[in-house]
C-alpha cells in the first residue's frame, strides 16, 4: 500500500467530483488500478473484466487550455486541448491516478494528441476502423480488442476470461438499459427533467467506480421520477419547446448552450450525442458464441462523425425526433471539430427533409461567445 497526495487544484472541483477523486485515491491505495478513457468507443467491458476501473478523462474546462497550447495549436478542439492540458499540467486527479490511458483512432486531433500524451503517460491506442460498411471492419475491430485484451493482461498481470467478459457485458448492458430508461422518461410531455439536470446526472455517474451501485441509483431515480410524475409533479412547465441536441460531446459547453435553451423557453428532451442515447441504445449480445466479437459489434453501431459514411447517425436522428416529439434540432459543435462541422451540412439537409427546424452552434470553452450564442439560441426558440 502506498499513499497518494492530491494535486493542488483538487479544492476547485465540485463536491460530486471530489468524492470521485477520493474514491479513485482509495482504489489506488488498496492496490487497485485505474484506466483513463476518452471516448464512447472504449471497450469498457475488457477493462472491467481485467478488474481495472475505467474513468473518463475528457477535459471539460477552459482552465488547462493555456498549458496545452504550449504544445498544441490554438485552433484545435477545446476538448482535446483541455484533456491534454490536464495531463501535461498534472492537474486532473483522474489523469494523475491512471495507470493506463486508453485512446482510439477517432478524430485526427485526438489521435495525434495521444502520441504527445504518450510521452508523459502510458497510453495505448486502439485502431478503430472508420468504414463500418466494409466486410473486414468487424474482423479488424475484433482483432484490435483481442490485442487490447493481451495488453491489459500483461500490464496488470491478470487473465481476462470469456466468462469475465460475458459478466462485464451483462452488467454494462444493464447500466445502458437503465440509462436509456431514464432518458426515455423525457418522452413525457411535459418532460419530468430539465435537460441540464439530466445531462449532469448522467455525466456524474461515470465517476462512481461501483457499477452495481450506479445501476441501483439509476433504477431508483427512474422509479422515483416516474412516481412523482404520476403523482402530478411537473418540474418542467408545459408548453416548452422540445429540443433534441446532437453533435459533439458538450460537457464543457453545457452552461452556454443547454442552460441557455432552458432559460429561453426550451427544454432539451433528448441528447443524441456521446453521453446520451447514441451509445446507450445498443447492447452487447451476451448470448453470442464469441463474446469478443459481440462486444466489437456493439461498438461499431455508434454513429459518430468519425465514421464515413456515418449512416447510423442519419438513421437514428429521425427516429429520435419522432419518438421524443421534438420541435427543433440543435447541433452543438466544438470549435475546429472537422468531422462534426463538415457533417453538419448533411444533418441540415436531413432536418429539412423531415421538416424540423435546425440550428447549428460552434462553441469553445471560453466565455467570450456567450452573448452571441444566447442571441442565436433565443432567436431559434422564438422562431419555433
Amino acid at each position, binding site marked *: 500500500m502506498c499513499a497518494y497526495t492530491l494535486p493542488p487544484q483538487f479544492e476547485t472541483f465540485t463536491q460530486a467530483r471530489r468524492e470521485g477523486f477520493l474514491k479513485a485515491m482509495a482504489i489506488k491505495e488498496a492496490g487497485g488500478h485505474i484506466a483513463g478513457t476518452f471516448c464512447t468507443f472504449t471497450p469498457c467491458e475488457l477493462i472491467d473484466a481485467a478488474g481495472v476501473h475505467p474513468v473518463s478523462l475528457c477535459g471539460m474546462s477552459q482552465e488547462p487550455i493555456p498549458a496545452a497550447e504550449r504544445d498544441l495549436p490554438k485552433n484545435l478542439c477545446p476538448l482535446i486541448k483541455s484533456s491534454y492540458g490536464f495531463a501535461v499540467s498534472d492537474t486532473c486527479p483522474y489523469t494523475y491516478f491512471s495507470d493506463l490511458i486508453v485512446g482510439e483512432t477517432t478524430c485526427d486531433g485526438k489521435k495525434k494528441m495521444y502520441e504527445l500524451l504518450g510521452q508523459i503517460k502510458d497510453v495505448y491506442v486502439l485502431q478503430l476502423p472508420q468504414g463500418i460498411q466494409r466486410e473486414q471492419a468487424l474482423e479488424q475491430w475484433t482483432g484490435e480488442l483481442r490485442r487490447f485484451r493481451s495488453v491489459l493482461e500483461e500490464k496488470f498481470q491478470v487473465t481476462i476470461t470469456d466468462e469475465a467478459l460475458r459478466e462485464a457485458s451483462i452488467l454494462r448492458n444493464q447500466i445502458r438499459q437503465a440509462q436509456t430508461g431514464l432518458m426515455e422518461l423525457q418522452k413525457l410531455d411535459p418532460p419530468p427533467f430539465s435537460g441540464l439536470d439530466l445531462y449532469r446526472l448522467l455525466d456524474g455517474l461515470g465517476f462512481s467506480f461501483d457499477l452495481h451501485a450506479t445501476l441501483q441509483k439509476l433504477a431508483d431515480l427512474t422509479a422515483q421520477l416516474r412516481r412523482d410524475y404520476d403523482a402530478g409533479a411537473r418540474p418542467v412547465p408545459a408548453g416548452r419547446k422540445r429540443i433534441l441536441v446532437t453533435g459533439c460531446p458538450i460537457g464543457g459547453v453545457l452552461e452556454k448552450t443547454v442552460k441557455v435553451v432552458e432559460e429561453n423557453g426550451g427544454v432539451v428532451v433528448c441528447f443524441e450525442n456521446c453521453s446520451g442515447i447514441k451509445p446507450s441504445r445498443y447492447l452487447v449480445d451476451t448470448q453470442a458464441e464469441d463474446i469478443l466479437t459481440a462486444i466489437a459489434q456493439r461498438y461499431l453501431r455508434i454513429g459518430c462523425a468519425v465514421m464515413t459514411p456515418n449512416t447510423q447517425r442519419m438513421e437514428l436522428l429521425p427516429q429520435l425526433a419522432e419518438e421524443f416529439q421534438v420541435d427543433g434540432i440543435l447541433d452543438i459543435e466544438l470549435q475546429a471539430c472537422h468531422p462534426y462541422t463538415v457533417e453538419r451540412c448533411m444533418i441540415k439537409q436531413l432536418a429539412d427533409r423531415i421538416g424540423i*427546424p*435546425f440550428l447549428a452552434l*460552434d462553441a469553445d470553452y471560453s466565455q*467570450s*461567445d456567450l*452573448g*452571441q450564442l444566447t*442571441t*442565436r439560441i*433565443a*432567436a*431559434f426558440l*422564438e*422562431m419555433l
Partner: protein
Amino acid sequence: MYSIGVDIGSTCAKLAVLEDGQELAFHTVMPTGWSSGNTAQAILDLLEERGFQGAPCVATGYGRRNVPYAQKAVTEITCHAKGGGFLFGEGPYVLIDIGGQDTKIIAVSGGAVQDFLMNDKCSAGTGRFLEIMANTLCVDPARLCELARAGSGVSISSMCTVFAESEVISLIGSGASKEDIAFGVVDSIVNKVASQYGRLAGPGSACCLTGGLCESPYILEALSKKLGTPVRSSPLARYAGAIGAALIAYGENKR
C-alpha cells in the same frame, strides 16, 4: 394605442413608437455609447418628454436585457423579421441586416422567421469593419461608401479587421487613391455578406437590406450586383428592429 420598440445595438440605439401597430408616430437614433443602461435611460427621458411613457414596450438588440421598463426582451432576429414585414411585406424574401457587430441573414416568409444565420465572432462583413476602415481613411462611413463608387481595382484580402486595417495602411503608403481603397473595403464587406447569403438563400431570392448601411445607395448597388438580385431597402430600414419590437409590444397588448 401607442407601443414602443427599443433596439439597443452595439453602435446605435434606435427607438420606434407605433400608433395602433400601424403608423410610425415617432422614431429616432442615438449612439449607444459605453453603457446600454444609460442609453436606455436617455430613451426613457425622451419618451417622457414626448408623452409616450407607460405604453407597452419591447426591447431588442444586444443591450435588450438592460432596458428595465421593457415588458419583454426579444432577439433582434425575430424583431428584424417583424419590422421587415412592416416595411417590405410578408415575404417570402431574405432579409440582410448589416449591424454594428453582427451581420444576420434571415429567411422570412409569412412575416415570420423561417431560418437564419449570423456571422461568427469575427467582425468581417459588419458595420464595425466599415467604421474602422473609414477611421483609417479619415472619412465617415457614409462618405467611404460614396467614395467607393469612383474607385476600382483594389481588393482587400484579409478577413480579419485588424489585418485588413494594416492592409489599408499599406495601400495608403503605396499611394493608392482613397476611392480605390474605399472600393476595396466595400467589396470586402459585400463579398463576406454574399457568402453568408449563399448559405441560406437560393439564387435570385428576393432580398431586402436593413441596418445602418441601408442609407448608402452604393452599398445597395454593390450588393444587388454581387447577389444577382435587386436588393430593396427603405429610409426606415435601420429602424426595422425597433419597429418589429414595437409591433410585438402592440400584438401582445392590444385588446
